[in-house]
């Protein structure tokens, strides 16, 4: 059983050392949203480095800016100020098309809602993004089967979303995200809509992906089950990282 995370306030002083270059890096990120006539700051001068091969969890109360941070680190949104580096690439310097290309080649996403196309079978859902990578049907089917196998859904490959449970749908969504073997995997509240068993299974899968493929898995969640399984937990509050805790054995995958 893992020990309970120890929350600390000074990031630079308490973050455990991690060998190797970070795969995701935020430098003094700022982001604010306009609500009516008022400008509401969401992220304030936030700096952060995330390493590959780990399941990193960003946790914090609702509205603390954790989803915004995920969207900036994944290139879905651009910061008002500061820089984001992903796999050494300055995301702010990329055009919209180059950013889409970067995401196509290197990133996977898992969202709280499963967002599967009702018309497609599980296998086709996973195959779909692979086609945009220029893969032929045979190769994409092979990759998709491998991904479905990894999430334990080989037997359900021919089923449509209406025939799958919530947990199975989320596992299809994970298979869709990992089929192209991305170096970066982003997950936003992946277990929130799931029951205990399904949630646990999803956590295990995300953890295994990080460990076995060396993928950078960045997860945003307030699910306490995830906190126990994460290699590293970043505590956020009021648009800033307030704590950074790492599993004692996380540096030796």
């Amino acid at each position: 059983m893992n020990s309970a995370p120890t929350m600390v306030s000074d990031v630079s002083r308490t973050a455990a050392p991690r060998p190797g270059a970070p795969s995701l890096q935020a430098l003094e990120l700022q982001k604010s949203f306009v609500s009516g006539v008022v400008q509401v700051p969401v992220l304030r001068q936030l700096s952060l480095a995330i390493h590959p091969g780990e399941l990193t969890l960003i946790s914090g109360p609702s509205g603390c800016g954790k989803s915004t941070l995920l969207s900036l680190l994944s290139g879905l949104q651009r910061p008002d100020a500061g820089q984001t580096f992903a796999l050494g690439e300055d995301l702010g310097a990329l055009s919209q098309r180059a950013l889409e290309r970067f995401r196509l080649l290197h990133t996977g996403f898992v969202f709280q809602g499963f967002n599967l196309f009702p018309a497609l079978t599980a296998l086709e859902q996973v195959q779909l993004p692979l086609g945009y990578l220029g893969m032929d049907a045979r190769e994409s089917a092979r990759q998709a089967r491998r991904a479905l196998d990894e999430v334990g859904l080989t037997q359900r490959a021919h089923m449509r979303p209406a025939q799958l449970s919530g947990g199975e749908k989320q596992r299809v969504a994970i298979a869709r995200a990992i089929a192209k073997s991305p170096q970066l995997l982003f997950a936003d509240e992946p277990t929130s809509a799931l029951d205990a068993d399904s949630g646990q299974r999803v956590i295990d899968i995300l953890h295994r992906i990080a460990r076995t493929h060396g993928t950078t898995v960045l997860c945003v969640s307030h699910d306490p089950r995830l906190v126990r399984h994460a290699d590293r937990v970043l505590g956020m509050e009021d648009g800033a990282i307030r704590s950074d805790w790492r599993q004692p054995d996380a540096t030796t995958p």
Partner: protein
Amino acid sequence: MIALARKTLIHEWRRFVPAVFAVGFSCVLLAVQAALVLGIFGSAALYVRASGADLWAGYPGTQSVNFGRAIGRDVDLRLAMDPAVAATEPYVWVDADWRGTQGGGGGVSVYLSGIRTAPDGMLFSRLLAPWQREALRTPGAVIVDRADLSTLSATVGGNAWINGHAVRVVAAVDGLRGLGGANVLSSLDTAREIAGGNAAANPTYVVARTHSPEQAAQVQARLAAGAPGFGPFEVWTAPQFARRSQLYWLLDTGAGVAVLFMVGIVCLVGTVVTSQSLMAVVAGSAREYAVLNALGVSRRALGRLVIEQACWIGGLGLLLGGIASAGLLWIAMVQGVPVAMTPATALACAGLVALVALLSGLLAMRGLMAADPALLLR
């Protein structure tokens, strides 16, 4: 590549039905409208198309067959002098007033066509059976369209009055309905007698047959070069004169503008309804599209998906509309409604329908605006 557009269309066909019907209705409206226009205004050229003549000579500048004016009798001679012309015959056109013996009341405006009654007569050769042409030889004998019998308060075998001259309906045929008045056929002698006066002796047109139809254009060119010593006249080939008559009614009477206006309205309504239905479908899948965009599928590629869906809807709508149009036009033809369709017109209608579907797809791409992956983050 997974055929997402096609698979979605098949799996969620109920959501696409309104869009397919909108395209189908646009198709039916365009096709039926075009067929009515061709049918109604095509009857302006009925006299040319129902006749076997290759050349028509009439008063210079005549806009349509029914606006003919008397030309010199020597025009017949001038045409006959051309070596490529095999035969000529005069056509006497009389704007007249018909009074039936039944029902009483006022007169009906009719176009009386005086034609040659010999078996090899060119005028209305495609409409009249040999016995009908022969029946016109009896003085005062006339033939009318079957559909005009009630308008003219006449019966086959019954009597009537044209410009105060007694006539007898010897036969009724199909396909003689005209534009602006009922068509009545008679012999040249009967027409001249009804017209009365010296002017009636002159023909309104002289039609000619060439040895081969290909020679018609050469003869026309030769005659257009001038015929000194003969009265004023102009020569057209049969297709030219038919087209000229039709275009006059279509363009110079304002009818064409009205038709174009209706085409515009049909296309606009079709596009709006189809794009709204399609946009609802796109917006309904916005979250799924947003995930694809997050995974790196470009907005351009997503736009292509919407256009592909629009093309499928356009194709299905066209199929549905095509079948419905064919059925409706067949019913119209059976019922004697003046409709006509040509391959070129059908192709033009299909092209407009395809345009409606494509424009709808382009407009529906606005639905992708809602597919922002950042909105999926909570």
